[in-house]
C-alpha cells in the first residue's frame, strides 16, 4: 500500500506538470490555430534561462521566477508571433508544422550554443530538502507546489477563456478571424497575447519538471512533448479532458516504473518500456480517437514547380553520375566519403519527396525506416549483400504499409504527431537488445555484388550516385504517371479524390510502403557507407532535420533532396573549419523559417527560375517580325 501511494504521488505530480505543458499548447492552438511543435523547446529554453539566473547568477528564486515567467517568456512568445506566426495564419497546415518544427530546432541550437551540453547542470526544486509526510509517504514541498500550480493554472485558464472578454475574444478570433476584425478586434494583438500566455505556460512546465532530471536540452524538449499526448485526448480544445489525459499519463508512467520490474515476457521487462509510455499513449489516442471532421478541401499553391520529362530527367541523372564519378578522382578520401554520405541521405530524402511532397503526407519518422533498413542489412539478411539491401527495402516497405493502416484517416497535423511518436518508439526499440546490438553500434559491411565490391570511398560514391540518380528518375516517373496524379489528388483534396471514386486506403498504403522501402534502402546504403552505425544516427531529431531541410530545399523536387543531403552531410564538416557551434541547427531553423515566405523552398525557386528563363527564351524566338498596327486591330474588331 505504501509503495502504491508513493508511486501515485509521483504519478500525480508528473501528470500535473504534463497538464501545465499541455494546457499551454491547447491555449496557443485554440487561439491562433497553430500547433506549436516548439512548445517543448520554449519550455526547455526558459528552464535553462531560469537555471542561469537562479543557479549561475545566484538570483533569489522569486526574482528569477518573475523575470523568467512574467517578463522573458511572454516577450519570447510575443516575438515568435510577431516574426513568424503572423505570416502563417492563412498558410496551409503543412507550412505551420514546418515553421514550428524549425523553431524547435533553432531553439535547441541556440540553447546548446549558450549552455554547452558537456557541463552538467542541476536545478534545485523549490524549498529543496523540505517535505511533509502524508500517510507515511514523503511529499516534497516542490511536489506540493507543482500540484497547487497545476490547479491554479486550470482554474485561471477556465476563468480566462469563459468569463473574461479577453478570453472570449481569443476564442472568437479562432472561430472566424475575418469576422473578429469586423467586430473591431485586432486579431494579431489577440494572437500575440495568446502566444505570450502559451510561452509562459511552457516555461512554467519546464521549470517545474527540470529539477527531476539534469538539465538536458533534447530530453527537456522532447519530454514536454509528452504533454502533446494529453492535449490530444482533449482534441487540442478541451482543457478538462487535457488535464484528465495528463493525469492518466503521469500515473501510467509511474506505475510502469513502480511495478513493471516484476512483469516480463521472455527477456522483455515491462519496466524497460517506461520511457515509451507517453509515446504509446499518444499513438493510442491518435488512432483510437474519433477524428475531427475533415475540412472541405482548400486549394493552396496552384503554381508548383514543373516536373521534368523522362528524357530530361534521364539526361540530368546521367550527368550527375558522370560528373560525380569524375569528381571522385579529384577529391580526397575524406571529401569523397562526405559526398557519398550526402547522396545516401539524399536517397532517404527522396522517399520523403514522394510521401510529403507528392502525396502531402507529413512523416517525421523517415530515419526510423532507414534505421530498420540498417538493422536488416547488418544483422538479419546477408550482411553487405545485394539481397540484404533489397530485403531492407522490402521489410521497411511492409513496415511502412503497416504504419499507414492506423494513420490512414489522419490529417497532416495528427499524422506528423503520430509519426513523431513512432519515431520515438523506434528510438527506444533500436536501443533494446533486439534492435541494434546492446551497447549501441552495429557493423555493416559494404556492398558486394558477386565479384564486384564497393569497398573503397570512391566506389561507394559512384555506387551511391547511381542509386540516387535511379531513385530520382523513378520518383519523377511516378509523379508523371497516373499513380502520381492520384498522389496529387490525395494531397490537394482527399475528400474530392474519394468522392471521385479514388480508393484512399490503397493509395495511402502504397505510397507509405514505397516511401518506407526507399528510405530502408537508403538506410542500408547509408550504414554500409558508414560501416559502423548506432541508434544515435537514427534519432527522431534526425528525421526532423530531414523533413526540415527538404522543406527548405523544396519538398516537391529532386534538387531539394540533393540539396538537403549535401546540407546535412557537409555542414557539420564545414562547421569544424569555421568554428561556429551548432551551425546546422541554426541554419536549418533559419532556412525553414524562410519558408513562411516561399512555400516551394530553394529547389522550387531554382526550378521556377529555370522555367521563367525558358519561357522568356521561347518568347524571344516566337516574337513576330513586325508589330501589327493598332488601326488594323480596331477595324478588325
Amino acid at each position, binding site marked *: 500500500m505504501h509503495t502504491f501511494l508513493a508511486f501515485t504521488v509521483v504519478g500525480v505530480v508528473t501528470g500535473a506538470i504534463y497538464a501545465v505543458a499541455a494546457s499551454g499548447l491547447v491555449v496557443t492552438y485554440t487561439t491562433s490555430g497553430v500547433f506549436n511543435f516548439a512548445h517543448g523547446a520554449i519550455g526547455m529554453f526558459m528552464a535553462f534561462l531560469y537555471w542561469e539566473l537562479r543557479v549561475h547568477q545566484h538570483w533569489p528564486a522569486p526574482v528569477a521566477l518573475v523575470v523568467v515567467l512574467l517578463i522573458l517568456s511572454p516577450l519570447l512568445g510575443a516575438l515568435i508571433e510577431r516574426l513568424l506566426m503572423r505570416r502563417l495564419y492563412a498558410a496551409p497546415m503543412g507550412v505551420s508544422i514546418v515553421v514550428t518544427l524549425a523553431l524547435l530546432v533553432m531553439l535547441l541550437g541556440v540553447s546548446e550554443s549558450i549552455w554547452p551540453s558537456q557541463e552538467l547542470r542541476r536545478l534545485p526544486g523549490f524549498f529543496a530538502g523540505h517535505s511533509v509526510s502524508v500517510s507515511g509517504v514523503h511529499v516534497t514541498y516542490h511536489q506540493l507546489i507543482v500540484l497547487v500550480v497545476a490547479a491554479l493554472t486550470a482554474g485561471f485558464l477556465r476563468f480566462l477563456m469563459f468569463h473574461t472578454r479577453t478570453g472570449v475574444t481569443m476564442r472568437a478570433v479562432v*472561430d472566424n478571424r475575418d469576422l473578429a476584425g469586423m467586430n*473591431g478586434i*485586432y486579431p494579431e494583438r489577440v494572437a500575440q497575447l495568446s502566444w505570450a500566455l502559451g510561452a509562459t505556460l511552457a516555461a512554467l512546465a519546464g521549470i517545474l519538471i527540470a529539477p527531476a532530471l539534469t538539465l538536458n536540452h533534447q530530453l527537456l524538449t522532447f519530454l514536454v512533448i509528452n504533454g502533446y499526448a494529453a492535449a490530444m485526448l482533449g482534441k487540442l480544445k478541451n482543457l478538462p479532458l487535457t488535464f484528465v489525459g495528463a493525469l492518466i499519463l503521469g500515473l501510467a508512467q509511474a506505475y510502469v516504473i513502480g511495478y513493471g520490474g516484476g512483469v516480463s515476457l521472455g527477456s522483455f521487462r515491462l519496466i524497460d518500456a517506461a520511457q515509451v509510455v507517453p509515446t504509446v499513449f499518444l499513438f493510442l489516442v491518435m488512432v483510437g480517437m474519433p477524428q475531427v471532421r475533415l475540412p472541405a478541401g482548400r486549394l493552396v499553391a496552384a503554381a508548383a514547380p514543373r516536373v521534368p520529362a523522362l528524357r530530361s530527367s534521364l539526361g540530368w541523372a546521367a550527368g550527375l553520375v558522370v560528373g560525380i564519378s569524375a569528381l571522385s578522382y579529384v577529391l580526397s578520401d575524406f571529401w569523397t566519403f562526405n559526398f557519398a554520405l550526402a547522396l545516401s541521405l539524399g536517397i532517404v530524402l527522396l522517399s520523403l519527396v514522394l510521401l510529403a511532397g507528392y502525396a502531402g503526407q507529413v512523416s517525421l519518422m523517415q530515419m526510423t525506416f532507414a534505421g530498420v533498413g540498417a538493422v536488416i542489412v547488418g544483422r538479419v539478411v546477408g550482411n553487405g549483400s545485394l539481397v540484404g539491401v533489397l530485403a531492407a527495402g522490402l521489410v521497411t516497405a511492409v513496415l511502412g504499409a503497416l504504419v499507414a493502416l492506423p494513420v490512414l484517416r489522419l490529417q497532416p497535423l495528427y499524422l506528423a504527431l503520430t509519426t513523431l511518436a513512432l519515431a520515438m518508439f523506434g528510438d527506444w526499440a533500436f536501443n533494446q537488445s533486439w534492435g541494434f546490438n546492446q551497447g549501441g553500434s552495429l557493423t555493416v559491411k559494404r556492398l558486394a555484388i558477386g565479384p564486384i565490391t564497393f569497398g573503397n570511398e570512391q566506389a561507394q560514391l559512384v555506387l551511391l550516385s547511381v542509386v540516387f540518380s535511379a531513385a530520382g528518375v523513378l520518383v519523377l516517373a511516378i509523379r508523371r504517371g497516373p499513380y502520381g496524379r492520384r498522389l496529387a489528388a490525395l494531397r490537394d483534396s482527399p475528400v474530392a479524390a474519394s468522392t471521385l471514386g479514388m480508393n484512399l486506403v490503397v493509395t495511402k498504403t502504397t505510397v507509405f510502403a514505397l516511401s518506407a522501402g526507399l528510405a530502408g534502402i537508403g538506410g542500408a546504403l547509408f550504414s554500409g557507407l558508414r560501416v559502423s552505425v548506432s541508434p544515435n544516427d537514427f534519432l527522431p531529431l534526425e528525421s526532423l532535420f530531414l523533413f526540415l531541410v527538404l522543406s527548405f530545399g523544396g519538398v516537391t523536387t529532386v534538387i531539394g533532396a540533393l540539396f538537403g543531403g549535401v546540407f546535412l552531410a557537409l555542414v557539420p564538416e564545414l562547421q569544424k573549419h569555421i568554428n561556429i557551434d551548432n551551425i546546422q541547427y541554426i541554419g536549418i531553423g533559419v532556412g525553414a523559417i524562410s519558408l513562411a515566405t516561399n512555400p516551394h523552398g530553394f529547389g522550387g525557386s531554382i526550378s521556377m527560375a529555370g522555367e521563367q528563363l525558358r519561357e522568356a527564351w521561347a518568347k524571344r524566338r516566337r516574337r513576330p517580325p513586325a508589330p501589327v498596327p493598332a488601326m488594323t486591330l480596331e477595324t478588325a474588331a
Partner: protein
Amino acid sequence: MTAPALELIDVRAGYGRINVLHGVDLTLPRGKVLALLGANGAGKSTTAQVAGGRIVPRSGCLHVGGHHVNGASSADLAKAGVCTVPEGRGIFPNLTVDENLWVMTHVAPGSRSELRERAFRFFPRLGQRRGQLAGTLSGGEQQMLAMSRALVSEPSVLILDEMSMGLAPLIVRELFENVAMLKDQGIAILIIEQFAETALRVADFAAVMAHGRITAVGLPDQIAGQLSSAYLGGAA
C-alpha cells in the same frame, strides 16, 4: 455640404493575380440606402470587402465620412463606424449567443448587459437561446444574431452582404423591416443582393454592377426597368 458616408473613387482591387474591380465609383450619402445589384461574379462582394477594409484596393480611394482610409484594417473601420455583416453567417459558431454579443462590445457602446438587453429587445428569440452555441441556431436565428451587431453598435455605415441568402421569405421580410428601421435612425446602408426585388423596396438609390464596373446608377424604379438587360450583360 457634408461629405458622403462612404465613397469609392476609381477603385481597382482583386485577389492575387486576378483583378476583379476595374475602376468602381460609388457614393453612399448619409442616411440613405443604396442597393448594389448584379449577377454572380460581377464584383459586388469584392466591393463590399473593399468598403469593409477586408481587401486593400490596388488603386483608387476609399473615403469614410470624408476621410481617406485606404489601407485601414477591418478592425480600424469597424471602430470608425463601418459595420459589415458579411456574406454567409456573420457569427462565431463555437461561441454561445451570449458570448457572441459580448464580443460586440468591442464596437458597441454600453456595458455587456445593456447590449444584451438591447439585442434581445429586437430579437426576443435570441434571448431564449442565449446559452446555446451560435452554430446550432437555425439559419434565420443566426442572421438575426449577425444583424444584432448592426442594431446595437450604432454605426454610421452599414454594409449588408447577401443578407437574404438561403433564408425563408418570412425571415427575409423581418430582417428587411429592421433595415428600414435602421435607415430611419439615419444610418447609411449599402445592401448587396443578387435578388433585387426586396432590396429595391427599401433602397433610395440603386446601382448595377457587371464585370467589375458600375454600369448603371439611378432611382430604384429606373433601375428595376433596366435590370434584365444588366443581368444578361447587354447594358452599357
